[in-house]
């Protein structure tokens, strides 16, 4: 087991900088998920830890020892590839045995290690088959088995569920989590799927354009996004975003005269720079009411997505369409009249220029 640290890591591909002054400490036994769009640098960061990619500048430490100049083989780290990368000419058993054979482990020890891993991952019945004869899920189990069999310092996974279908993804996600809890191995997992990230991670690391945006627990990044990118990237449906105008304790949407009443102290605490403010509010913080009441603003529904457990209702407020999460069947149909309010405690304000959360991320 291991603690992994990245200090001031820079990585250029030609003139293109894909990692910008990257800092991260991954604690022993922690499950860290790197989340971001494709091309955001998350895979590069992962490959840099593994030693599959050299870094231009900075330090990578495993258990306090600098490894940035060491080859992948000398870092004792396992890697699960998105494409599985099983050896197609070998049976499942030979695939799992490969990392043990490569370091000349003796046969008896090897067989018991393979047996144990195969049982944990429920692939014992496939041991003598070729990878091409397996389903996608089983192939990924074999790939994870090959990674775990030698009890590595850390387990790195690069979108391991990316090529599986939805149902299998959910199942494998649960299995990976279970495996992590059972083994307690330090794990770093890369994905662009925020649901995967939320469900697996002890801590989520959000990257955008090679820059670290936020590191925090799933709750933390969901409830207290540090900037507009994180706010929009995490959560489904996406957070409502609108340019707003603040006058005293009133927050007005464009084209909507009435505006919402906010607690004056909340607004005065904003570190406003005068570059204009964007309001961000999650659908569950957009409150709908069937009747007029204090602080509620009149609006018309434009679309309803019944999702079974809840509905997503679109309401038009001035020039803006806000999405609200309601209990199912709360609004009958489109064009219905409703009253809308915002939960001030869950409202975020972002600076239009810096895109930083003006509530200081708290």
């Amino acid at each position: 087991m291991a603690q992994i640290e990245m200090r001031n890591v820079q990585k250029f591909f030609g003139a293109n900088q894909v990692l910008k002054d990257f800092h991260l400490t991954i604690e022993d036994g922690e499950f860290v998920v790197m989340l971001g769009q494709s091309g955001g640098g998350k895979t590069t960061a992962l490959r840099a830890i593994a030693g599959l990619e050299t870094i231009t500048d900075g330090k990578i430490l495993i258990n306090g020892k600098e490894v940035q100049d060491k080859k992948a083989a000398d870092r004792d780290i396992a890697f699960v590839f998105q494409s599985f990368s099983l050896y197609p000419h070998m049976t499942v058993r030979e695939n799992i045995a490969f990392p043990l054979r490569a370091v000349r482990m003796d046969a008896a020890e090897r067989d018991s290690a393979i047996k144990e891993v195969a049982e944990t991952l429920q692939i014992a019945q496939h041991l003598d088959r070729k990878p091409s004869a397996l389903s996608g899920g089983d192939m990924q189990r074999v790939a994870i088995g090959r990674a775990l069999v030698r009890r590595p310092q850390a387990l790195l996974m690069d979108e391991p569920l990316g090529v599986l279908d939805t149902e299998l993804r959910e199942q494998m996600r649960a299995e990976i989590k279970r495996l992590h809890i059972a083994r307690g191995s330090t794990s770093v997992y890369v994905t662009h799927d925020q649901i995967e990230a939320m469900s697996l991670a002890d801590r989520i690391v959000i990257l955008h354009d090679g820059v670290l945006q936020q590191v925090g627990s799933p709750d933390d990044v969901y409830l207290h996004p540090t900037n507009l990118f994180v706010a929009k990237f995490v959560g489904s449906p996406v957070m409502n975003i609108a340019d707003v105008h603040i006058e005293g304790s009133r927050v007005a949407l464009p084209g909507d005269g009435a505006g919402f009443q906010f607690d004056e102290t909340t607004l005065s605490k904003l570190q406003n720079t005068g570059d204009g403010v964007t309001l961000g509010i999650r659908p569950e913080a957009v409150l709908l009411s069937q009747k007029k009441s204090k602080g509620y603003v009149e609006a018309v529904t434009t679309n309803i997505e019944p999702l079974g457990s809840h509905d997503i209702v679109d309401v038009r407020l001035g020039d803006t369409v806000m999405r609200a999460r309601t209990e199912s069947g709360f609004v009958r149909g489109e064009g219905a009249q409703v009253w809308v309010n915002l939960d001030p405690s869950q409202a975020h304000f972002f600076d239009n220029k810096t895109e930083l959360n003006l509530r200081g991320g708290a």
Partner: protein
Amino acid sequence: MASDVMTKLDPKSKAAAKGFSDLTIRNLFIIPTIVFLIVFNIFPLLYSLGYSFTDFRASTNNPAKFVGLQNYRDLLSDPFIWKNFSITAKYVLISVTGQVVVGFGLAMLLNRTLPLKGLITTLLLLPMMLSMAVVGLFWKLLYDPNFGIINYFLGLGKFEWLADPDVALWAIAIVDIWMWAPFVMLLSLAGLSAVPKHLYEAAEIDRAGSLYTFFRITLPMVAPILMIAIIFRTMEAFKTFDLAYVLSSQPTTELIAIRLYKMAFQEWQTGMSSAFAYIVLIMVVAITNIYVKYLNKVKAR
């Protein structure tokens, strides 16, 4: 039948105006080829099979006399013929092994990003494009004990490459390797570049050393295409005639093709040489079949 899948003739075309039908045009293309094949390939093949059971000599007017399997019996019990076979086997082994080692080695060297890679590859392929007889004559000059450049560079003085009975066969094989290693290189290069890069990354992560990676990943992945190169080169090496004939006339370099040539066109033993040719044909087919069986086994993996 076949006419169902053919493109219909445009009724406004010139061919239609001349009264040709689809079928006529198809026949115009196919019949000459079939006639050619029958006259120059299939007919001689069957005719020589007939001759192989007679004592016919093309140099005399004596009618052919049927002798049954006598020719085959004589050939297979002739120790000199077996000597030719063992020389050929040795030659095939040296030449093909050399080509695979050199060709695969070159492919490994070229299988990376190199400046001028395209130019280097093209230059390496040049020997393959030359005529066998020309290559033979060139190398005869290069090997020459008096003014040959090989002895000059290796500092071997007046070493007789082609006249030394123990070395001559090796000297011919070296020329064959020089000429055909590029062919193996070309196929190996195709095989090597088809190995997915992520497998090497996986092997690196799995802490496999470079030798272990080579024997457990690279070689098995390239094996099928390498086998095809070996099949081609073995068949060709087995039939080698011109190169050996031009370079040397030692008894130790008398390959079966040369023996066959002498038997047929210098000694005029037409019947006997037909039988000999059939024995060689059966052997080539047999060897090729062994390889193909093995190739299928490799491919099934």
